[in-house]
Each structure stands twice: as structure tokens, then as C-alpha cells.
């Protein structure tokens, strides 16, 4: 059988299993079971599958995934996040689209402390939407900025999804976590420019209101108390990798420990909170890792059936510029992102995409950053992006799914603009990792 028929059947089976509601992790395992049995000589293939499950998850870098998830859980449950927003609030004057800008600023700082986009979206929504509602903000200026900013958690380290992408694509997690910093900040900048520009032109979208001035001394003290310690945690996560002192996993463990210390200092640490944060992190971690258990076997199957090399050959022998192929690849990811969640998209595409990237001689970290940005878009692209539903869940009554969809569009376009910059000018991604001391 030609490889493209095999590939179509495998992807078709995956879509059917997903469609009838099989959890994604078990859809991958079921396909692996059938394919290993057929392609790898029956029972021997299934023994091989069991061994591949073990080798898929037992990587030291993946240990940072539960640690990043835990950091976010502690950060959100201990009240550190809401204290931080209060301090930010005191610094922001009468800016156009003030609350929308606060969502971007808050989202950027959250992103540097947590690794989960949905948690950040829910948190920003809960903290900011009631105020936005009270001040008469239009839905485009309340829902949109929150969804955009929540997604930054994926793009600014620590990023659990980023670690998994690097693990699947087999490139350096440390380099990658540092490489996504500039693209992530570019996204915040793009959001901020858009909000200021649009609110200056259409003033009714975000009515200005009087801000109670806070004495400078108090602002400074609060900043020293509640913002500077956060930089300490950020330093543990990114700084230690940067200085070459600790591996990404070690800095993740120290970051998690640092978050606990902060929570304890602020009095947000209770036995109950710790238990809830741990169990919730376990739930997310087990869910993610269970999907990853299928990754090695799945990519080996794609390679064995000839699909991987077949597609790579099509891509490299086609009479078009490599950049066109890269753009087509991203376009496919965008379409998949409308219907699927990021990790399964990565599982399906990384084994096929990375050989092509290698054949073209592109830097895997550069391509990874663009792909991760694409995965961030997947969480807010209609109709099925996960964070759209998270947003709907924390939005006030009367907000329809249509409102949420409409609000997401400008931010998806902004993401596309940033993606264009990254494609056109790779140093935006590759410049910063060059300074990591090895």
C-alpha cells in the first residue's frame, strides 16, 4: 500500500475515535495497538509498544512539566496573582483602554510565572471582567484582550507545552525556553499597541474613568513587596538556565520551591491549599503525560510506513521555495487548531514536520517557536479553541459564544502579524539563546 493511503487511514481512524468521544490519550494508544500489531509482526509488535510507552515519558526534561503546572496552581490559589494585579492597577494612569492594557501587563507577568494558558485566562477573566463590565467596556475590549493575554502563558517561559514540543521535536529545552521570550514579549507589545490605537480612535469601546491616585511612596512599597519577589521566581526559572547553572528541570524544581516560599511569606499557604494545588497539578500532568506515552510508537509507525520520508520528499522535491513549504505547514496547523487541542496537533505533526525542517536545514528552535505561537492561536481559534470556552465560563451572563468568537479575531490577526515577523526575521527567536553560557 502506498504511504499516503496508510497515512490517510491512520489520520481517519484518529478522527473517528476522537469523534465518538474517546479520550485523546487512549485514541493514540488504540491506534498504536492496531498499527503495531499489523506492521510490527503481531505479538512482538505489542511488546515493542509497551517498551516504547516507557521510553516516551521517561525523560528528565519532561519532569519540568508537572513542576511548571504546580507553579501556576500555587500562584493562582495563594492569592499572589490578585495582589500583583492590585499593584499593577496602582501604576496605570488614565490610559486609553486602561483595563485592557492591565490584562496584557498582568498576562505577561503571569506568563512568566505559570505554564498554563487556560488557568491564566480564567484568572484574568475573574479578576478583570467584573470591573470592565462596571466601567462599560465593550466586549471587544474586555473578552479579546483577556483571551490574548491568557495565551501568553504558553509563549513566555515557563511553558509546559513548550517543554513537550521540545521533547517531541528532540531539540534543547533550555535553548527553546529562552528562545520564546522575545516572541512572547513581541506579542504583548503587539496587543498593547493595538489596544491603545483602537481605544484612542473608538473611545466608546473603553470609556475613560477617573482613577484614584495612590501616593507614590505606597506604590513603591507595594511594588517592592509584591512585584520584586516575583522577579526572584522568574530568575530561578529562566535566569539559572541562562547562566548555565541549572538544567531546565532543576530550575523548574527551584522555581516551584520558590513559589511555595512566596506563598508562605504572603500567608497564602494552608494545608488545604497545598493539597488542592498538588491534586490539580497531578490531574493535568497525568492527562498530558498519558497522551505523551503514545508519542514514540506513533512517530515510529509513521516512519515505518514510509509516511515520514514520503512527505519529506514531497516537500523538498516540490518546485517551490522552502519558505513557501514552511508557510503551508503553518497554515495546516492553523486549520487543525480550529478543531483540535495543541498537544494532539503536536503529536500528529511533529514526527512529520521535523524531518522536513532538517532536510531544509532550518533551525529546529526557530521553527519550534513559530509552531508554539501557532499552538497558542489554536487555544483561541473558533470554533473549538479551549480558551474560548474558558472565557465563556468566566464571562458575565448574556455573553454569547458569538461574542467570544468575534472578540478573538483581532488577537488572532495580531498573532499572525507576529508570526510573519518571526518567519521573516529568525534572529528574533535565535538571538537571545546565543547568550546562554554553556
Amino acid at each position: 500500500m502506498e504511504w499516503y493511503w496508510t497515512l490517510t487511514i491512520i489520520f481517519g481512524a484518529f478522527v473517528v475515535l476522537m469523534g465518538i468521544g474517546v479520550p485523546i490519550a487512549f485514541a493514540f494508544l488504540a491506534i498504536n495497538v492496531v498499527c503495531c500489531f499489523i506492521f510490527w509482526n503481531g505479538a512482538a509488535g505489542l511488546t515493542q509498544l509497551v517498551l516504547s510507552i516507557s521510553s516516551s515519558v521517561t525523560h528528565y526534561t519532561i519532569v519540568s512539566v508537572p513542576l511548571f503546572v504546580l507553579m501556576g496552581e500555587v500562584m493562582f490559589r495563594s492569592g499572589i496573582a490578585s495582589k500583583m494585579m492590585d499593584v499593577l492597577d496602582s501604576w496605570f494612569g488614565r490610559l486609553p483602554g486602561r483595563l485592557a492594557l492591565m490584562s496584557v501587563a498582568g498576562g505577561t507577568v503571569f506568563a512568566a510565572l505559570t505554564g498554563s494558558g487556560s488557568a491564566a485566562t480564567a484568572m484574568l477573566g475573574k479578576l478583570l471582567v467584573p470591573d470592565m463590565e462596571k466601567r462599560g467596556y465593550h466586549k471587544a475590549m474586555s473578552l479579546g484582550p483577556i483571551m490574548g493575554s491568557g495565551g501568553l502563558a504558553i509563549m513566555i517561559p515557563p511553558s509546559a507545552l513548550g517543554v513537550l514540543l521540545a521533547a517531541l521535536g528532540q531539540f534543547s529545552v533550555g535553548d527553546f525556553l529562552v528562545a520564546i521570550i522575545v516572541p512572547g514579549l513581541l506579542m504583548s507589545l503587539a496587543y498593547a499597541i493595538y489596544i491603545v490605537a483602537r481605544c484612542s480612535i473608538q473611545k466608546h469601546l473603553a470609556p475613560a474613568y477617573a482613577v484614584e491616585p495612590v501616593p507614590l511612596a505606597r506604590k513603591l512599597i507595594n511594588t517592592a513587596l509584591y512585584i520584586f519577589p516575583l522577579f526572584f521566581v522568574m530568575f530561578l526559572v529562566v535566569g539559572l538556565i541562562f547562566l548555565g547553572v541549572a538544567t531546565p528541570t532543576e530550575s523548574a524544581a527551584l522555581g516551584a520551591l520558590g513559589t511555595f516560599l512566596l506563598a508562605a511569606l504572603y500567608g497564602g499557604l494552608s494545608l488545604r491549599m497545598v493539597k488542592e494545588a498538588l491534586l490539580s497539578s497531578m490531574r493535568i500532568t497525568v492527562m498530558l503525560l498519558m497522551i505523551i506515552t503514545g508519542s514514540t510508537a506513533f512517530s515510529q509507525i509513521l516512519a515505518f510506513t514510509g509516511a515520514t520520508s514520503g512527505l519529506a520528499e514531497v516537500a523538498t522535491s516540490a518546485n517551490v521555495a522552502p519558505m513557501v513549504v514552511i508557510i503551508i505547514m503553518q497554515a495546516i496547523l492553523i486549520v487543525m487548531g480550529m478543531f483540535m487541542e495543541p498537544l494532539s496537533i503536536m503529536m500528529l505533526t511533529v514526527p512529520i514536520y521535523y524531518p522536513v525542517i532538517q532536510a531544509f536545514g532550518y533551525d529546529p528552535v526557530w521553527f519550534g517557536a513559530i509552531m508554539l505561537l501557532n499552538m497558542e492561536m489554536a487555544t483561541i481559534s473558533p470554533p473549538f479553541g479551549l480558551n474560548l470556552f474558558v472565557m465563556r465560563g468566566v464571562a458575565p451572563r448574556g455573553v454569547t459564544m458569538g461574542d467570544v468568537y468575534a472578540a478573538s479575531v483581532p488577537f488572532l490577526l495580531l498573532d499572525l502579524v507576529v508570526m510573519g515577523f518571526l518567519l521573516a526575521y529568525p534572529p528574533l527567536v535565535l538571538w537571545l539563546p546565543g547568550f546562554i553560557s554553556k
Partner: protein
Amino acid sequence: MNRLLRILAACESAGAAGATLLFVGITLAICAEVLLRYGFNRPISWVVEISEYSLLWITFLGAAWVLRHGGHVRVDILLQYLSPAALRICGLFSSAAGIVTTLVLIAFGADATWTAYMRGAFKPTGTDVPTWMILIVIPLGGLLLFFRFARMFVEYWTRQRDFGAEPSH
């Protein structure tokens, strides 16, 4: 029957508790390792390896518990447009797919574990952890998953369960 279900739920919760303890343990071990390496120049050699194996244990110890709470992400947005009868059929097929998959995990996981045990295989990386100790969690976790999928199948069959009744993410 109710008693058996309670035992299953207790085993699942015990698995989750074990996974959580393991996670806390490796987190502390990694922190201690970094401090000892830089503070006292005495690295602990086993930390990296043991944390890697722990990931497999955490995943399979916690998997059935996460399944019971509907925490394994799935696409259920399309399903809301189906009729109750069609939903029941989807539920039967999807839990059947889970049953078959976990049976393979149990059978071949047990076989791989037993083979590793008989051969005395170990990881020749310094810690010399016997391979069977790492692999055995696959059939064990598979067993819990099997019972949970079987229970879901029975619930759909006897119409005790509506599809999508469990919380999903």
C-alpha cells in the same frame, strides 16, 4: 457490586495519592541535588534516573483516577448535537475501545515485566534499577483503567449514564 465499586474507587485514589507523593519526593530530591552540588560539591547521582522512572509511575498510577474524574481531555463539543440514542452508542464504542486498549496494556505489559524479571534485566546506568520494577506499573495501571472503562461500558449499557455526564476539560 457497590462494594466492588468502592474498592475500585479506593484503589484509584490510592494510586493518585501514590503519584502525588512520588511527585513531591522527586521535586524535593531535585532541589536537594542542586543545593548539594553547588553548596557542597556533592552531587547525588541517582536523582536524574529515578525522576525519569517516576514519570512513568506517576502517569500510570494516576491514570484511572483521572479517568474517573473525566480529566482525560477529549473532544466532546461535536457530541452535543447527537440524539441520546446516538450518544449511547458512541459511549459504548468509546468505552469498548478503552477496554480493548487496556487489555493489551495489561497482557503485554505483564509479559514484558515478567520477561525482564526472568532475565534479570537492569538499567546499566549506575543505579542498576531492575527493569521489571519500572515496567510493572504499566500492567498495574492498565488493570485499574480496564476496570474503570468496563464500569463505564456497563453504565452506558444499562442506561445509568448519560454521555458527557462527567466533567470534561
